[in-house]
């Protein structure tokens, strides 16, 4: 079980597609991937979480830490394509009021 991030760059936006299960074993792998991003002022980062099949507080912790880092650099972070399960996790922890989060569109 692993987690991977595929990056795609267009202009000032960096897209990251996160895939896998996020727990105490894989969270450090995600943290490392996110820490490798070269941040600059005004940059936009969009993380697509549609292929995150499991996440708990360790995963939330990685996103919170990264969010703080991004804010410090005056860049922007958006989490997109969250499943209803993932969106709920951000909601009950109050994180959805803090970070920019977009759920997957209802069909």
């Amino acid at each position, binding site marked *: 079980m692993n987690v991977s991030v595929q990056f795609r760059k267009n202009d000032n936006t960096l897209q990251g597609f996160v895939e896998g*299960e996020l727990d105490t074993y894989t969270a450090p792998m995600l943290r490392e991937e996110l820490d490798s991003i070269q941040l600059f002022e005004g940059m936009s980062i969009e993380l697509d979480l549609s292929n995150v099949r499991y996440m*708990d507080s360790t995963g939330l912790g990685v996103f919170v830490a990264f969010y703080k880092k991004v804010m410090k650099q005056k860049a922007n972070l958006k989490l997109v394509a969250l499943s209803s399960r993932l969106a709920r*996790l951000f909601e*009950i922890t*109050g994180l959805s009021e803090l970070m920019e989060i977009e759920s997957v569109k209802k069909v």
Partner: protein
Amino acid sequence: MRAFDYIEIRIPAKPQYVSVIRLTISGMATRIGFSYDQIEDLKIAVSEAVTNVVQHAYQGIEDGEIVIGSALYPHKIEVMISDFGSSFNFEEVKSNIGPYRDYENVELIREGGLGLFLMETLMDEVRVNNEGGATVFMTKYVTREQVGEDVEQIST
């Protein structure tokens, strides 16, 4: 005859085994008849408890173990997560947990500490015993749709 089936698993207190417990819990919950969402909640709550032991109980000790005991009833599951390492003060930990409120200052956001909050939110009951190692005891009831949340199951 006993009113429940009991399943016990013992794992090394290492991060790579948390997902193994998650899979096992998911299988047991399916047997009882929990819904998809309830099973996902259970997986998170149990993972949080096991993760807590992995991260904190055996500081500096190589071969710590975690025991996960599950009692399977017709309409509920009881899960006990136990270590033999250091215990934590439940009330103290509890007072420091909760949703992310008062977040005017981004720097103050806690990165950890959400585990216990999630356990309490996602399970029907969570209890902690600190005598000689920490034991977390959690219960979740099968709820059917269109049944009020306060409806209690009659336990045998």
